[in-house]
């Protein structure tokens, strides 16, 4: 555990509305190691998105600590690139290529020529070379998500944070995007923290799965996924049982 890349230690997250304080997660701990495909899985209300936002630096912790490579997370930063669920996460006034180049330049990570080369490389990887000069509004939902993934990967962050990136896609596109993400991972073995409410997606995408129970989010289990197709159905049943009570084995 000590050599984990990302360490989440006893993290409690609370939202303040004008009338009450809502606890999203209660003392959640886990560690993500390099090249993990770590999945946060749970029903709505388990605070998985809140946890991801806290790792992203958007949400302060009420209790506990989040460290990335030993440094405490205090705010958003380009070492934790985020891919959102919403299609409007691309800057509509920039073309596909410009969207990928922009963070590389804005953070001063690369010079213009190198940034453009890197952007081209990753746009090619997600199969959108033909659309490099298109504006986002001309793309389909799946293509927009691919650009967002290319943008995140081009920054080569310590960890890529994905907040249900395929949830708004149709089932067919969703399936092919999952395969594509795995293919991309095979290439570069990037570390990813992935949030989903789909058990099936968690098993397909993840190497390690953190199971959260709702209201407030608490760790129910942390388990390895499997690529063995014959074992996946059993694992799915087991997770379902853990989340929704027994009597399902």
């Amino acid at each position, binding site marked *: 555990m000590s050599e984990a890349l990302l360490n989440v230690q006893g993290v409690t997250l609370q939202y303040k509305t004008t009338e009450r304080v809502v606890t999203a997660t209660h003392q959640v701990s886990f560690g993500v190691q390099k090249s993990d495909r770590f999945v946060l899985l749970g029903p709505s209300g388990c605070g998985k998105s809140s946890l991801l936002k806290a790792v992203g630096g958007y949400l302060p912790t009420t209790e506990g600590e989040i460290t990335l490579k030993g440094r405490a997370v205090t705010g*958003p*930063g380009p070492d934790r690139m*985020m891919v*959102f669920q919403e299609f409007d*996460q691309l*800057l509509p*006034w920039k073309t596909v290529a410009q969207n990928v180049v922009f*963070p590389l330049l*804005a953070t001063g990570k690369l010079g213009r020529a190198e940034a453009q080369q890197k952007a081209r490389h990753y746009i090619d990887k997600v199969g959108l070379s033909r659309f490099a000069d298109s*504006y986002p509004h001309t793309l389909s939902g799946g293509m927009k998500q691919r650009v967002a993934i290319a943008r995140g990967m081009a920054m080569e962050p310590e960890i890529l944070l994905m907040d249900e990136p395929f949830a708004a896609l149709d089932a067919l596109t969703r399936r092919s995007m999952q395969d594509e993400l795995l293919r991309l991972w095979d290439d570069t073995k990037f570390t990813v923290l992935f949030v989903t409410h789909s058990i099936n997606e968690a098993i397909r995408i993840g190497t390690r799965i953190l199971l959260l129970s709702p209201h407030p989010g608490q760790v129910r289990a942390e388990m390895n996924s499997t690529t063995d197709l014959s074992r996946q159905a059993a694992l799915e049943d087991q997770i379902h049982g853990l989340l929704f009570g027994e009597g399902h084995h």
Partner: protein
Amino acid sequence: MNEINANPRPDRFYEVAAFTGTNAVERPIPAIERLWNRGWLRKLLILVVLAGIWELYGQWSDNSLLFPSFSDTMAAFWENIANGKLPARALASVQVLLLGYALGTLLATVLSVLAITTRIGNDFLETLTSMFNPLPAIALLPLALLWFGLGNGSLIFVLVHSVLWVVALNMHAGFLGVSQTLRMVGRNYGLGSLSYVVKILVPAAFPSILTGLKVGWAFAWRTLIAAELVFGVSSGKGGLGWFIFENKNQLEIPSVFAGLLSVILIGLAMENLVFRTIERRTVRKWGMQH
């Protein structure tokens, strides 16, 4: 239970050949229809029809003192352009206008950026706009005359007032309307607050900002002409408002109409050439407006 279908159907597979039907996937639209799809042509047609009605009514009423016809107005218009009066007046108006407009927009930008970055700035802008936005610029003219005297200073003061609040209001509304996702994307890049505003908020709020600029332009133009009507009197080179006032006093009504026509034409040119071009190159190209 599963035996409902007595005639089981086999699976069938088809080869999909390249589409070569009589109706091709794409075909050109007829020339007339393409012409009719041009916005400027339809608008030009409307203008021609309106001018025709105007001419007919002018001829019929036959009273060029009260209502000169279109042709009388055009004659006066050309005459005043030829003798250089109208262009000089229009130039004087546009110069003051641009100055006041630029100043007002600049102030509006500063106020709305402060409002989006600090809470006290937000309170400040909200209070000020609710106080001053409903106040007609012309109502400030007596004060302006007292403070800045007869001349461009007073004009610019009322112009800034007429532009500032409406532009600031729209800019601020635009900033507030930027989606949470885009804000988080911007913050993800670790941009400083100024480059966050310039590189994320301003383009993301551009449709609203553009609306503010358009409304601000119209307000400024109105205010200017009205203010010139009131006190163009003493300053040697007045603007279009003063041109209208002067000609009314001399009962040169076709010239009054020519002056009004110039006000309209400059407004139309600004809307259709400048703002339309900006729109086409920005918000439409980006798919933020259709």
